[in-house]
């Protein structure tokens, strides 16, 4: 058994070395996806804006300071591209920026004399999310400005937070990206390694040995595991550099959970390989499963709070029913240092059950599909 597994692994690794393009691309996909996501995640924290300032004076300076200072744990709320009025309009009119805040000339005078002053926020409203984000950020600046004018006149808030601090969105998403990368790599590697034996018509010589399927499946898993390890080794520093993921806090338990996700991805890969016996559908299906796990399971604890009614609630319930979300949160909280390290036995068992089930289905299917139909 051991020698047979080793034979499969050596053969597959040799084939990977001889034709490395697919493996390189398999490794690149999660890496590039992380890079893409890192580039886009900032839209949730920082929005670019130009300010056309026509006013001068201490109130104006204070307001502009506030606009520059307002931030979340992740970064400033606004990226002020320019304060120069002429340039601001030029950039806005040329569609180089989607929002322009105009501070009128009367701003300083009105505030000095106790009159109300009106700012103009021009927005290219092609996406309601952007419009909302600009509106809320300017409102936040105004709230802070009024607080600075007279703290007692405004309504203050006392916040009781569930966690000691907000997890920065980029760090929150990083765990999901890590899982996405492990899942996708293991699923695509195992699935295509399996399917290739049928696609290249080499399966018969393996199937018709007294060793049965187990060394074949385990061998594929070992090869896929090595590929996934290489992938994870590349992904982690990237997450650390681009998204500040605290890789130093990854405990043994976190690694164990990553192994569990590898098994899940590999089991799904084996099943896909056996079901389709072609690489053609395996890659897109794996991408869809990986993306769904990332967007639904890894964001479940976020979606949970606003999934009240409609399709979102339906999707959230689906995500919360699947064991991945709980495990991902356990990893997240462990890495962020929020919770004591504890094994989530329920989710663990549930996940192991799914892995076992997928393998059993694959084995049944393999046994049934042994019928290499006539003439083949």
């Amino acid at each position, binding site marked *: 058994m051991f020698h047979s597994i080793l034979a499969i692994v050596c053969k597959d690794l040799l084939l990977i070395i001889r034709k490395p393009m697919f493996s390189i691309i398999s490794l690149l996909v999660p890496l590039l996806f992380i890079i893409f996501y890192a580039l886009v995640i900032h839209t949730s924290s920082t929005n670019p804006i130009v300010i056309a300032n026509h006013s001068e004076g201490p109130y104006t300076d204070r307001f502009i300071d506030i606009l520059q200072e307002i931030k979340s744990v992740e970064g400033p709320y606004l*990226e002020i591209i320019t304060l120069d009025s002429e340039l601001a309009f030029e950039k806005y009119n040329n569609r180089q920026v989607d929002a322009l805040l105009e501070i009128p000339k009367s701003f300083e005078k009105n*505030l000095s004399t106790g009159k109300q002053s009106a700012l103009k926020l021009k927005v290219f409203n092609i*996406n309601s999310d952007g419009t909302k984000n600009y509106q809320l950020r300017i*409102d936040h600046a105004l709230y802070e400005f009024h607080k600075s004018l007279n703290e007692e006149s405004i309504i203050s808030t006392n916040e009781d937070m569930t966690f000691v601090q907000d997890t920065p969105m980029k760090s929150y998403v990083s765990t999901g990206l890590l899982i996405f990368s492990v899942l996708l790599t293991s699923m695509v590697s195992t699935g295509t390694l399996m399917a290739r034996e049928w696609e290249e018509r080499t399966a018969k010589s393996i199937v018709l040995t007294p060793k049965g399927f187990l060394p074949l499946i385990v061998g594929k898993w070992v090869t896929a595991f090595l590929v996934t390890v290489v992938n994870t080794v590349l992904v982690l520093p990237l997450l650390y550099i681009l998204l500040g993921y605290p890789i130093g806090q990854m405990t043994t338990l976190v690694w164990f959970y990553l192994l569990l996700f590898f098994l899940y991805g590999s089991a799904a890969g084996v099943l896909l390989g056996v079901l389709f016996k072609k690489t053609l559908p395996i890659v897109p299906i794996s991408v869809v499963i990986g993306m769904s796990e990332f967007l639904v399971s890894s964001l479940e604890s976020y979606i949970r709070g606003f999934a009240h009614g409609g399709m979102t609630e339906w999707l959230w319930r689906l995500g919360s029913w699947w064991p991945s979300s709980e495990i991902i949160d356990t990893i997240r909280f462990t890495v962020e240092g929020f919770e004591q390290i504890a094994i989530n036995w329920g989710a663990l068992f549930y996940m192991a059950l799914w892995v076992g089930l997928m393998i059993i289905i694959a084995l049944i299917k393999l046994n049934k599909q042994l019928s290499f139909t006539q003439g083949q």
Partner: protein
Amino acid sequence: MKKWQAILAIHNRNMKILIRQKQMLIQPIIVPLVLLFLMVVIFGGGGDNWPVVIADESKSVESQALMEAFKNSESNITPYFDLIEMNPYEAEKKVSEGRLHLFIKIPDNFVESKNIELKTYNINSDAMKNVRLRVEHALNKYFEQQGELKVISHQVTEQPNDVWRSAFYGGSSVLLTLFLGSMIIAANLHAFDHENRSVKEIILTPTGSITAGLGIILTSVYVSLIISLIPLTLSILFLHFDFHFYNILLVYLSIIPLLIGCAGIGLLLGACFKQYRVLQPLIILIAIGTYIIGGGFAGVNMLMPLAREIANIWIFSVIFEWFNPVIHNFAISFSFRQYTFLLLAGILGFLFTFIAYRFKLRNSIFGGQ
């Protein structure tokens, strides 16, 4: 005439392959649809209303006014809050479980203290930004009603109505289907000849192998135009997508040269990598990557400086940046420069086809095949 006959023959063959090998057709349909579905459901495609429980323990005139301010707070498309009826004890429990992000308590001493209490499930900074900034928006509104707001902001939008986020995703999904479709179908059809060993047959046709490439381009463009009607229809039906007939017609006609360009790239990639399993992740990655940083998820102007720089270099971002404004009626035509570029993309598509068939295909034949 014979050339046209050959191109049409290849096109007919391709259509039959696509109908019978459904996996080839399903990819450019399913990837944008799944992306659209998940984006809409997860990133608030339903509107801007955030579920919240507010308990007014003050029951004063002031607290009633504040409640009104919360109720009346709204973005350009929907209210900012979805007020849920729940007793305070249960609401606190729901927040600690994460089933709610925010519970607002207006305490009985509100009039004197001018203070409200928030209990938050601060799972991440994005959720908290949405929650806290909404609260401040409502508080500003309250001040404004009270006449205490010294500075107010008036919003002036380019179009009278905002494009719903879901409609924006819908438009992007149509564009994604178009360019992913033409590229991946062309690549798959090219790879089909390699995987099925019918390359020689293609090369040795007396009408010239390039006709096979032109046939594939025809199929890819035609099929991608057809399948893009799926996300378009879904967007119109379910995603608050305003259908502007003239604009859509203009987009569909103007994008054809670009699709020829994409199909040409697909053929070139097909000729280089030959196998489905290499081609598919590569092309899907190009497509999703372009969708994310090229203006499909959010306009390039909304991205961080580095991403904006990359998007400016990444030529595919013009697909979303140029066509989305027309789709949503923010522009009613393309500029001369844009038309020139589109034409050039079409010419490049033919050039890529020529390269793929003239050089790459011949190199792929070796002894015994």
